[in-house]
């Protein structure tokens, strides 16, 4: 009884705006990964430090990031911190929310990767006269990053997918935000989101493929 009329032309008119949104999505995902990796390194060192307080902080961070929904985390960054008077723009709320999540998952990956590196290596590095920081920086870290390269790629894909949660904190410049904004005006839900889906697919595939090429170059020896 219901005959749906596709209006692809109308939806395709919005393609330039959506592609701009896709750039923002990629930007947020990349930044959140960079921040996430840095924090994850710090958390990993906290766990290795032997200090009870530091490793408790790291464990709490990791467990909250891994055991609550990302949507919840992003919402908390915006409205939770907001009730303490810390006001973050939608962009920052989304970025920090995803970075928080990334850091938790990556720290866990790094820990798994460290298990694969024998203690003897650190000990021999130390006996060669390296400081603890040096032995971590030049011996352990390169191997750790190499082992966790694949999980890091997966996390990057998740970061891209997670940007779609920005609408709960009024983010309207990323790909999902732009699409839902257009949808609120024109109600061509299927057409608009189908185009968004294709763009997301292309982005994630490009990222995974380039990560694979990069890995082939970086780790060829």
């Amino acid at each position: 009884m219901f005959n749906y009329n596709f209006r692809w032309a109308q939806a395709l008119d919005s393609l330039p705006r959506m592609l701009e949104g896709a750039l923002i999505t990629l930007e947020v995902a990349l930044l959140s990964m960079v921040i996430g990796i840095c924090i994850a390194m710090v958390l990993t060192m906290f766990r290795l430090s032997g200090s009870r307080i530091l490793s408790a902080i790291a464990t709490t961070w990791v467990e909250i990031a891994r055991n609550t929904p990302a949507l919840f985390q992003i919402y908390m960054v915006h409205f939770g911190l907001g009730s303490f008077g810390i006001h973050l723009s939608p962009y920052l709320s989304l970025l920090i929310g995803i970075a928080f999540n990334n850091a938790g998952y990556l720290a866990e990956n790094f820990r798994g990767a460290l298990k694969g590196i024998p203690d003897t290596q650190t000990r021999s590095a130390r006996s060669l006269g390296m400081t603890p920081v040096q032995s971590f920086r030049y011996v352990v870290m390169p191997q750790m990053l190499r082992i966790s390269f694949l999980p890091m790629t997966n996390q990057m894909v998740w970061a891209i997918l997670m940007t779609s949660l920005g609408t709960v904190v009024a983010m309207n410049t990323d790909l999902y935000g732009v699409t839902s904004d257009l949808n609120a005006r024109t109600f061509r839900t299927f057409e608009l989101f189908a185009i968004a889906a294709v763009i997301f697919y292309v982005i994630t595939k490009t990222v995974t493929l380039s990560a694979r090429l990069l890995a082939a170059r970086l780790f060829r020896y």
Partner: protein
Amino acid sequence: MFDTALTTNDLIFLAKGAGMTLIVTAISVFFGTILGVIFGVFRYQVGPWWAAPLTFVLDIFRSIPLLIQLVLANAFITTVLGIRVSGFTIACGVLSLYTAAYCAEIVRGGIEAVPSTLRRAARSLGMTWRQDMTSVTMPLAARIALPSWIGLALGVMKDSALVYVVQVVELLKSAQILITRLQEPLFLLMICGLFYFLISFPVARFGGYLEKKWSND
């Protein structure tokens, strides 16, 4: 902060939301796992070339935000095709396929981790393919895959927070409804976060324990 306007009724309302989260998760993980095992075995068995179409389709579910999958499935089934189904059905359907896409990878990885020499040995003892699969490969593969599968199930539970877009009132949505009325965002969100944490954390720890225990022998 603990001086709250929350009543028993509101707690029941929240509990209903939590129940919805658990039901959606249980249904999706159940069907998703069955489908995932079938897809995973199929992909391993027919080789990458013949499995390419299936691989492609499953890959889509892992490359597009779940939120968009839900919106698209909802728009396609109900608006384009004009079929009358509930948001609950759509949520469970999409989440099942989403689970299956990840589960197929886990299953395939598990089977590949079983040494092929072992399988050849089983076959040369006169076992059929089916016997080899059920008595040798699957038990070993299951051990390897179980920790990842637990992680997946918990991931689906957390991702089920997104089914609010198809008008299913789950835990996070019911918390939002209460926030609208009571204006105690922090307190209510804490309860909500704590609930997810209390379910997810012990199970995740159990998964980690199994992984540790089984990796040593």
